[in-house]
């Protein structure tokens, strides 16, 4: 049997992973097994968060057909997605934009969620804060319309319009 990772060399290492009761088997050659060594727990230094992340990212690119091209690259710092998946660290804040097509599954695995709902920078985040308020008001608006509370709905609509005009007229829309 050939190595399921490179397909070139004969597989000599068998690796079984059990997640929520479902079993995945990998047959690897020694070279690929060594690359994945940390993940398999065979290195003396054990298990670092980097190798764990690298593991998550590598599993990502296996089996499942890869929709995004392999050559995602951050134009600001030059880091490629493959390098990122090896070191488990971004090189700069623009990497998040550059690797965007592949981030959702990764973040979901790590955090469960993919979208920030916490603090917004106090000084520079004013626009974002307003957009969040508008979203919340729209939510309430739909609710009132469904419940046929049209007077409340009208007042919510006015609030939304006021916020939207503030946003439109705001000269310092960030980024």
């Amino acid at each position, binding site marked *: 049997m050939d190595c399921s990772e490179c397909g070139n060399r004969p597989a000599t290492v068998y690796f079984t992973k059990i997640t929520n009761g479902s079993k995945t088997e990998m047959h690897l050659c020694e070279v690929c097994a060594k690359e994945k060594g940390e993940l398999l727990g065979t290195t003396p230094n054990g298990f670092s*968060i980097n190798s764990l*992340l690298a593991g998550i990212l590598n599993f990502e690119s296996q089996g499942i057909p890869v929709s995004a091209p392999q050559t995602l690259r951050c134009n*600001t*710092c030059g*880091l490629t997605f493959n390098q990122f998946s090896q*070191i*488990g*660290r*971004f*090189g*700069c*804040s623009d990497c*998040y*934009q550059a690797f965007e097509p592949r*981030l959702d599954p*990764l*973040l979901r695995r*790590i*955090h*469960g*969620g*993919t*979208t*920030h*709902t*916490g*603090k*917004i*920078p*106090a*000084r*520079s*985040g004013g626009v*974002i804060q307003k*957009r969040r308020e508008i979203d919340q008001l729209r939510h309430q608006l739909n609710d009132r319309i469904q419940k046929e509370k049209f007077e409340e709905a009208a007042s919510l609509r006015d609030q939304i319009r006021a916020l939207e005009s503030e946003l439109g007229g705001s000269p310092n829309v960030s980024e």
Partner: protein
Amino acid sequence: MSVSDFLKHTTATWMKEDGPESDIVISTRIRVARNLSASPFPVLATENMAQEVLSKVTNAVMSDEFAALGKFEVLKIGEIGNIDREALVEKHLISRNLVEDSRVGAVAMRSDEVVSIMINEEDHLRIQVLYPGFQLEDGWNLATAVDDALEQRLEYAFDEKRGYLTACPTNVGTGIRASVMMHLPGLVHTNQIGRILSAISQVGLVVRGIYGEGSDAIGNLFQISNQLTLGQSEADIIENLAVVAGQIIAHERTARKQLVMENRDSIEDRVCRSFGILANARKIDSKETMQRLSDVRLGIDLGMIQGVSANILKELMVITRPGFLQKYAGVELAPQERDWRRASLIRERLQIDR
């Protein structure tokens, strides 16, 4: 210098003062990761870029907005001696990572050592608040105020969808890591700790030994922190940890009562023996020190040992570590010498109270 003078001048607020639930919760830490938008993360930064980050942050810390938050001093890691650096790590004010891996690493330290801002660690900024006892909410309030004051002068890397952008995807979003260090001898001696720790890991929290990732829990000390940083608000993260920690406190109190009711004599024997060893040993290693200190602290909390300050656990767990021992000795000590010095330092400390 006498031990009491040494303690007065070298220890941090969390080691000297008490806080809420101090019989079980040793300290509360809030750490917030932030990065500047225009510069690559420290791992890819050149010396010049890192230097620029340091000077931007230094300007922000020295600005008028910041003065209201207390008196800060910026210390460059490269300019601190080896032993003093080690002592800062042992006090939990900076990370080992900052000492060993950082390029142009520095720390902005408040004079009471409650707030420390690491610069050019894994992220450009790691804001840390370290309080004695159980003070998660106050800790977050102070950390967010420091964050706001920095942001007055600095452009943060922030994305509407992903939140605060960090070098490691495990910190993105809120960038917050909240943790409480707890002394849980009751749960350990009643064999309930395993069950509790596995329950903790099922609610999005992690347990570590006292010196961070990878270290075992020695001296019955456990650090419990949030694992997830994206998708929940800071308030939710803090509240979740506070609720779980509150339950652990209640369980620990029950376990201690149970110990006293069912095993009073053997517990008393154990804590008094450990006191005898600490008060008389001539040579002791750090692992045994931590175990004995845990016993003595339990004895103090249960009223079995009197006339000894409950603070000795916090003080001695830090000042008996290698950096502090050498700082007190004033010279570098070989590992085998430290065990003798450690025993003598402990004896001197115990004599202050007696």
